[in-house]
């Protein structure tokens, strides 16, 4: 493993492997056929180094399965955050970082020349002026350093916003602990905790898809493009190899808290339609100019999204409003009515008979609701509307399930 480093320059490859180790835990070395065996070995070694205690090994006849196995409701810090703390850097990067901070901590402003001289006096190392200029530009963009022009000269001073000053009360510290474990860039909260040498040991999360953090960099780019009404050029994943590249206007991140799937809702100007693309397999997008009529498109999107059960925005052919009637004993099964009420999304629930409740869903794609509808198996009196395909598939599914579970005489039941 000559040349192996546990630090990496590009997150994309690590993202793919970690996702596979975590989601597809059944894969063995030979299943990772996209890259060479050497790549697999390096990525596995890195994962072991970053996440050691969470890796699980199972030796099977097919080979050794490596997986990340954990119950996400029992961890107080998302272990996949570790992968973001592995960015490689040059010797100059780290040397300049700490020497600059040590000089600028006095709160004074200095020119590039002054800083070069002071660094040399302090360490014996004289940085090139251009190297230092680029580093200070980067730190100004990051918000660590503030640059000010006095006359013709540019001066640099340290930003005074320290983690300790900002996290100056129990309340704010607890808030950061909590939000560091939430979906909306919890990773950034974790970086704040690390800066302040704090940990979250108070808050645990249920129904927590830790793997979503692997998309944080991509989403951050998308959010920035949304903010600027910019088009994005995105690579589309496709199993049959027909993915290609599309220029899209990003609308919203659609996230399912029950299935763990996240999509980017977009408008495709060249096709004048809305659709959504999976985020987990989306590489870093590229910007492709500003879109002038954003507000019009957004208004159309807002109207459309009220008819989405999940993420599908493509209108199913000949779809009618879907009506599902459930059998509910109101006197003893109030919890079923509660469940229907809280989970019905855009549906309308009405009592339609003695012990019968009907949910009407007027959806772009009624088929999308069927997985959820099947969670009520045992009490679905009838399904009307939707599409013929949908109704037939439901009936076929119940017949097949009846066969699987042995009808009245399940051989697997002792």
């Amino acid at each position, binding site marked *: 493993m000559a040349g192996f480093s*546990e*630090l990496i320059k590009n*997150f994309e490859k690590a993202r793919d492997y970690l996702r596979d180790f975590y*989601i*597809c835990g*059944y894969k063995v070395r030979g299943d990772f056929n996209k890259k060479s065996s050497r790549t697999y070995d390096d990525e596995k070694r890195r994962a072991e180094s970053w996440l050691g205690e969470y890796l699980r090994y199972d030796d099977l*006849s097919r080979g050794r*399965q490596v997986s990340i*196995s954990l*119950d996400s409701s029992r961890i107080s810090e998302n272990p996949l955050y570790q992968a973001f*703390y592995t960015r490689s850097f040059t010797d100059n990067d780290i*040397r300049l970082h*700490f*020497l600059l901070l*040590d000089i600028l*901590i006095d709160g004074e402003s200095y020119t590039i020349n002054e800083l070069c001289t002071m660094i040399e006096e*302090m360490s014996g190392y004289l940085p090139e002026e251009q190297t230092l200029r680029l580093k200070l530009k980067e730190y100004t963009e*990051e*918000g660590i350093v503030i640059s000010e022009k006095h006359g013709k000269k540019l001066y640099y001073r340290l*930003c005074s916003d320290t*983690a*300790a000053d900002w996290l*100056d009360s129990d309340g704010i510290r*607890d*808030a950061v602990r*909590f*939000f560091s474990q939430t*979906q*909306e860039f919890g990773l*950034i909260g974790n970086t*704040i905790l*690390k*800066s302040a040498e704090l940990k979250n040991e*108070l808050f645990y999360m*249920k129904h*927590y*898809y830790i793997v979503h953090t692997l998309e944080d960099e991509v989403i951050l780019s998308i*959010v*920035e493009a949304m903010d600027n009404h910019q088009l994005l050029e995105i690579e589309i994943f496709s199993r049959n190899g027909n993915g290609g590249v599309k220029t899209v206007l990003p609308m919203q991140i659609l996230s399912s808290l029950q299935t*763990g*799937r996240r999509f980017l809702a977009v408008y495709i100007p060249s096709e004048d339609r809305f659709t959504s693309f999976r985020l*987990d397999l989306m590489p*870093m997008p*590229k910007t*492709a*100019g*500003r879109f002038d009529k954003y507000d019009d498109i957004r208004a159309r999107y807002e109207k459309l*999204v009220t008819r989405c059960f999940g993420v599908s925005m493509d209108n199913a052919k000949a779809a009618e409003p879907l009506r599902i009637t459930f059998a509910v004993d109101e006197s003893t099964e109030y919890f079923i009515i509660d469940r229907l009420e809280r989970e019905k999304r855009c549906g309308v629930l009405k009592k339609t008979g003695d012990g019968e409740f009907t949910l009407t869903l007027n959806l772009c794609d009624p088929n999308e609701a069927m*997985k959820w509808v*099947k969670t009520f198996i045992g009490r*679905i*009196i009838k399904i009307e509307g939707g599409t013929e395909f949908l109704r037939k598939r439901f009936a076929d599914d119940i017949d*097949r*399930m009846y066969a*699987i*579970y042995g009808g*009245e005489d399940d051989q*697997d*039941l*002792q």
Partner: protein
Amino acid sequence: MISTECMPFTEVRTIKIFSELYGAYFRIVSKLLSEHAITDSEVYSIIAEDGFRDTGLFLTKKLMPQNDGSDWGLFKRDKVGVLHPVTVSEPPHILTTLQKRWLRSKLDDPRLCLFLDDRELKSLCEKVADVPPLYPHDVFRYVDKYSDGDPFTKTDYRKNFRAVLSALKQKQLIEISYVSRTGKSIVGKFLPYKLEYSHRDDKFRVFCTSALKGSVVINLARIETVSPAKSSGVIPPPDENSLRCDEPIELTVSKERRADERFLMEFAPYEKRTERIEGSDKVSVKLWYDKSDETDLLVRLLGFGPVLEIKGPQEIRQKAAERVRKQWKILHSDRK
């Protein structure tokens, strides 16, 4: 419609999270530079504690002064071999713009008021006054979040939340009066040991132990009052295993309709063991869960339809079979 000021395609990278500034190596070096004098063994110890498994292999030689000058030059060794930083002050931890923008975005989140009192909220507002939010609140749309989430902004809820959180931090016994799921009023002395938030349910639950009931889980929104309590009786230690299933659910899921892929994503938060069944298109799965989630889990598994089969334990397979039989009868009686 596309602006004439179109730029050529460029990666959107003006703000980034994957940066060495947040990296483990920078953090470790910052910690080491905070010491005026440090021995080699202390360096090894800090790297072992804060680094990755292999960090010592790469970092040590860059930190310790090397004869060939290949180190970073951040430490000098004295005559007795102790290391001293070339820097004078403890490295400051400056918040980046990204971090401040993230904090600013949280001001729009109703859950923030659970943690901050009015004074703390005012202080944060002042600090982020000139900072734009990282993302607007409506960027994320949670398509299936339950609609009956906890009332985070209600005064009583906030008060109870803070009392429970305080007891959790101080490890203090509290008296909680709450209404059970069946509508029964319950009062008892509890020692909270864990606060859990469900993203899907949008609710908090507190895990407690009590002398009378052992491990108990209470929905925060069902709590009516919380007050300090004096110890009475021996409080048993937290025992989360008592809430765990006795044996895992065993199931198979096929490739049909890409069910294997959808299942593995949906049940990713669970501890599980998966294996591709040789010579078939199925994956076998063992899945561990909390007993209180059994019904929820059962209906979610049934939602996959015939592409997933619950193999065991027997009583769970039986429950699935009963529901399927009931549904089959409804369907076929309807057709007759």
